[in-house]
């Protein structure tokens, strides 16, 4: 599904990613771990096409398509969803309008007509339940005045609405208490199908307890230095990252 080949990327002239190779197949959940500054968020931002990053070398293929040639919204239409580490507040734009615009843009890309207003609101209601999101949130502006937990739940809610094929969760667990984490993780699990995949960026095992990754990667200084099964995450939880560095 996703194939990253020798990816180099930089921001403000500083190289952060120094040759990433990563393949994610249908139905797989990959965990991406590593210390701060290793390049985890950079990788997720480059996949979705953040304008601040420049790809200097390498390729990203998504179902065979050259992702780097697409604009961020086109990548979204292809089915890539990023749950942001710090979702931005957009005052004055209501969640309803925002989601309608997003969903209908996708439908247009797929050659479908816009969704009827009634159907859309029904869909909103259904999907909201998945993450136990308050009815009132829908009428509020995007992320404005949301607590940290509400913002993350709102991200998963949007994921539910847009039904992506590849989800990237960028430290979705940060700033969440145990209950909120459970709600978010269970919401995510409900959305999983054999056709969807995910990349989960985290520092901690506790999110992975819920999400059960198939593969765990360790990112260090812009490269994937170790790839293994779920037990790697448990080992990191116990021993930290230094032993990996020493082994290199």
């Amino acid at each position: 599904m996703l194939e990253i080949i020798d990816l180099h990327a930089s921001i403000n002239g500083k190289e952060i990613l120094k040759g990433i190779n990563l393949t994610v197949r249908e139905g797989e959940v990959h965990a991406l771990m590593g210390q701060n500054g290793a390049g985890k968020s950079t990788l997720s931002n480059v996949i979705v096409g953040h304008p601040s990053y420049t790809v200097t070398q390498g390729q990203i293929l998504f179902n065979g398509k050259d992702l780097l040639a697409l604009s961020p919204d086109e990548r979204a239409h292809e089915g890539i969803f990023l749950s942001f580490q710090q979702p931005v507040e957009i005052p004055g734009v209501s969640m309803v309008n925002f989601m309608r615009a997003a969903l209908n843009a996708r439908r247009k890309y797929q050659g479908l007509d816009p969704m009827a207003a009634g159907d859309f609101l029904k869909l909103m209601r259904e999907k909201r339940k998945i993450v136990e999101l308050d009815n009132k949130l829908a009428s509020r502006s995007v992320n404005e005045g949301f607590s940290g937990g509400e913002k993350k739940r709102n991200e998963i809610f949007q994921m539910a609405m847009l039904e992506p094929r590849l989800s990237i969760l960028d430290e979705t667990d940060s700033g969440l208490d145990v209950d909120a984490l459970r709600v978010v993780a269970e919401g995510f699990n409900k959305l999983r199908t054999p056709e969807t995949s995910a990349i989960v960026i985290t520092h901690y095992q506790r999110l992975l307890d819920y999400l059960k990754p198939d593969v765990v990667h360790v990112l260090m200084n812009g490269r994937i230095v170790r790839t293994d099964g779920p037990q790697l995450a448990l080992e990191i939880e116990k021993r930290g990252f230094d032993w990996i560095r020493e082994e290199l």
Partner: protein
Amino acid sequence: MQSSQQYIDLFRQSASLIDRHSAPAMNALRAAAFDDFVRLGFPTTKEERYKYTDVASLFAPDYGLNLGRIDIPVNPYDAFRCDVPNLSTSLFFVVNDVFCSRFLPKASLPEGVLVGSLCEAAVRYPSLVERCYGHLASSGEDGITALNTMLAQDGLLVYVPKGVQVERPVQVVNILRADVDLMVNRRVLIVVEEDAAIKLLFCDHAADDRRFLTTQVTEAFVGERASLDLYCLEETHAKNTRLSNLYIRQEASSHVCHNAITLMGGTTRNRTDLVFCGENASCDMGGCVVADHTQHVDNNVLIDHRVGRCSSNVLYKYVLDHEATGAFAGRVLVRPEAQQTTSVERNQNICATRQARMYTQPMLEIYADDVKCSHGSTVGQIDEAALFYMQQRGISRQEAQLLLKFAFVGEVIDTMKLEPLQDRLHHLVEKRFRGELGRCEGCRLCK
């Protein structure tokens, strides 16, 4: 000074003609206004309040004036159909500066409420008009007000007697209609007595593709515990010049909500002076401007806190595209007696192109110590982080920009207290941003 000379000559030659087609209460102030105008001339950009609009050059073209009050045939209903859904208003028309008495709303206004020709009212109710006319709009310190007072022959009177609450909003459509380039000097008098309330919506339209220049001087008296909502929407065209001077006086515990929305126009200059004369009064003043091409929009606001315990809240937002220029100057004056004043003033602007230019000048002038005042002003562009977030959700960059611009000015529209009107304006603004003609459906006025 040359352009002012032709109006000085005009008045000298036509004073008796002007008087003949107006009312004594209005004629009474002309001589003094003329002297003021001779002394002041048109404001220059050296004057602090006219820094950003070169008024004299606006008067340089040759305009006709209808001093002889020749009837201009027009059936406003032929031209205008306002279809704000769910908004049922009492609809009146003013063509140039003439109140259309042939086309009145079917539903009648509450007992004692007057909406009609100022000139006729000045004859029928001389004491009411004399008591108010020219009392707020001093011709001694503003050349435009002087010119208007000297030349205005008619306009509109809105009168709400003591204790009367006018439930249904009153909508007044100003239609500019002429076969030649035309100057209109319109005068509006609004009197809302104690415990009375009214919501007024003024819509400016130009029916002909001619140059129009309108000076409009509005005086609004808001009595104790009274409430006035005054919404002014301008949707004219690039050849139109609007010079509006609005003077509002608020008595104790009164409330005013005023919004000036400029969607289409050539040159727009709104001067708004509001004075608090009684305690515990409040005002919400807003404006939103969507300007493109060579449009010029200048809002100049003075809030004069003369007494204590009043609160003012000012919010103006501009979105400037192409080579449009915008100016906002808001002066909040808190006099020594005005203790416990609260005042918030905000002006936020987006310049969408390199050629667009924004001047902003939020001023606080404070002589009392027990006050809470703040102002803020920003000029910038659309938030990149928000744009990217929306793109990640599959919304195209262009669409995301539209949504954000729309949300940006939406904040001003949401301060209005007529929900159907809010919806309508949201719709109009969205259309305006999409580059479609920002006009009401079914309206054939805006070409």
